[in-house]
């Protein structure tokens, strides 16, 4: 159906940065001053052509709190996913009580190394529920090749969140477009 995805916020990196925020009200990177809220039940978060400054570094995610637009750095991030690669047997992965979500781990700096991802965000602005995402990523890494992760992540705090922070474990993001869409209600 046409018009089912409504772009809410987007940021394309033009100068290297270590932290950006989509949504997040006045903390948002785009200056649009928008938030993830109850306007939509589900939001789609996409990452396109991400590149990093430090080889084999990790792009991470955090929720930003509606209360003060700041990233939640507490150890309340869990995930479970299947890690897929043509270079080794697929493996089950799970982590609890991390201080961030994982996103594009093992990002590289070589030619054509890049990452893409989609994640659907559920209950983000619901004060009574944990914030969930279903999550699919693909990274091309020259050694060995493609890495893909497919699974889910949850922030185990019942609080209202209004955005998503994209950050690095080390170094900077040097390029990439990050977008959130609302799934239109009918």
């Amino acid at each position, binding site marked *: 159906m046409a018009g089912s995805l409504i772009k809410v916020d987007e*940021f394309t*990196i033009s*100068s*290297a*940065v*270590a*932290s*950006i*925020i989509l949504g997040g009200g*006045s*903390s*948002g*990177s*785009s*200056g649009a*001053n928008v938030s993830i809220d109850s306007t939509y039940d589900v939001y789609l978060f996409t990452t396109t052509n991400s590149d990093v400054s430090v080889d084999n570094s*990790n792009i*991470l995610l955090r929720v930003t709190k509606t209360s003060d637009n700041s990233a939640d*750095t507490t150890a309340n991030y869990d995930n479970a996913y299947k890690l897929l*690669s043509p*270079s*080794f*047997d697929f*493996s089950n992965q799970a982590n609890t009580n991390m*201080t*961030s979500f994982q996103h594009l781990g093992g990002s590289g700096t070589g030619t054509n190394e890049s990452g893409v991802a989609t994640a659907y965000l559920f209950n983000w602005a619901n004060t009574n529920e944990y914030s969930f995402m279903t999550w699919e990523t693909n990274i091309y890494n020259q050694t*060995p090749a493609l890495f893909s992760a497919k699974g889910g992540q949850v922030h185990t705090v019942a609080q209202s969140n209004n955005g998503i922070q994209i*950050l690095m*474990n*080390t*170094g*900077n993001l040097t390029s990439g477009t990050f977008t959130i869409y609302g799934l239109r209600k009918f």
Partner: protein
Amino acid sequence: MAIKTIAQFRTEATSEIESAKPMFAQVNNQRREFTDSEYTQAIEDLAQSKLDTQDNGYKSARQEAYNSIQDQLDMQYWDSVNSTTTWADHIAQVKSDNPKPS
């Protein structure tokens, strides 16, 4: 290799973040330098990342280094036929190349 403590990793991370300055955040359509609290958080994040790599990095390295299950079964079959130790040698080599920290 001696296991490092989180305090030692915080010291390393502090040095690395100092070297990486200035770091920037994009906020409200402006690229601005990290605040003191953001630098502090970046140091903690890097230290925790280093600790996780130390404690768990060998697991993912071994996962990537092991031959596929199919290949390992094939190794075991031919080991049984030929009275060789190809499979055990492979496993031992991967473990040796990617030691558990101690």
